[in-house]
């Protein structure tokens, strides 16, 4: 996950201090895909992920002056992206225009139409199972399973103890495996 070339987080942080525009451009190029997939797994719909991603970077730009280089750029970005995704999910819940059930049916129809879903049967079952997880478990599972994030990094992003995160991930894995077995 960590890169050690001239595109490393340390180099980007240093560049931001001397040449903000260039540093920010490097930051966007390095992290836009990673953050997009992180957000997309949470919000499912591409349009929502697109909105949340752009808002994430706009917020990063606005508060980049407050970023302290002693903290990790990587966890700072994931914190903002996760908050953006959760804000969007909560907005959807309040508006009740797109429920989780609707997301599941969207997911199924998208996969059938092959417009947005590009995976086999096993992946389809896995992502349907992930959708059944409670919100917090879903975030923990995604960050650990797909982004291979450490519990230490996760605890900084989610402001939760490592023990609680481990328990949450354990429950999520058990539930997903149970669903996969039942199918």
């Amino acid at each position, binding site marked *: 996950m960590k890169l050690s070339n001239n595109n490393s987080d340390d180099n980007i942080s240093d560049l931001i201090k001397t040449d903000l525009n260039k540093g920010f*451009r490097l930051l966007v190029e390095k992290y836009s895909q990673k953050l*997009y997939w992180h957000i997309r*797994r949470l919000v499912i719909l591409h349009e929502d992920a697109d909105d949340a991603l752009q808002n994430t970077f706009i917020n990063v730009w*606005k508060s980049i002056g407050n970023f302290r280089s002693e903290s990790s750029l990587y966890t700072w970005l994931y914190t903002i992206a996760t908050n953006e995704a959760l804000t969007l999910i909560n907005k959807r819940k309040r508006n009740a225009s797109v429920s989780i059930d609707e997301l599941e049916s969207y997911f199924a129809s998208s996969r059938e139409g092959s417009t947005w879903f590009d*995976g086999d049967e096993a992946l389809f079952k896995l992502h349907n199972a992930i959708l059944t997880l409670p919100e917090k478990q879903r975030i923990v599972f995604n960050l650990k399973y797909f982004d291979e994030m450490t519990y230490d990094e996760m605890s900084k992003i989610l402001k939760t103890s490592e023990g609680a995160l481990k328990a949450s991930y354990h429950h999520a894995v058990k539930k997903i495996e149970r669903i996969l077995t039942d199918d």
Partner: protein
Amino acid sequence: MNKLSEIPEKIPFKVPDNYFEEVNRKIISATSGFDEQVRKVSFYNKFRTSLLIAASVAGIILISYTAIKLLIPDNKKSQVSEVLSEINPDSFINDIDISSLEEESSAFIPAEAGPDVSKKDIIDYLLFENIELNDIYEQL
């Protein structure tokens, strides 16, 4: 299949063609525009009070200059500049010929609408002032 480890770790979602190039461009351009906008707004907010004071002072100076140009005759302007050079407001006021100032200014000050009086009223008033009737008719 019942083990997560048996499922390949592959991103199953699709995105539109060239999405990431487009979104990166959009983000960069949006933040650049935002930066310019913020700087413009910040500049205005920061100096708003100073700008308003400067505009007010400029307005007062302009009005004063225009009033002096219009109200003071040419032959008196030299006196004004002399006075200004002496920076003595009292002597400036004393040197101005008030009567000539009134004559000049009368051309720019609209006459006040007087009471609605008829010719008969005027004649009566003049007779009251012991003015000869012939003189009155000559004036009319």
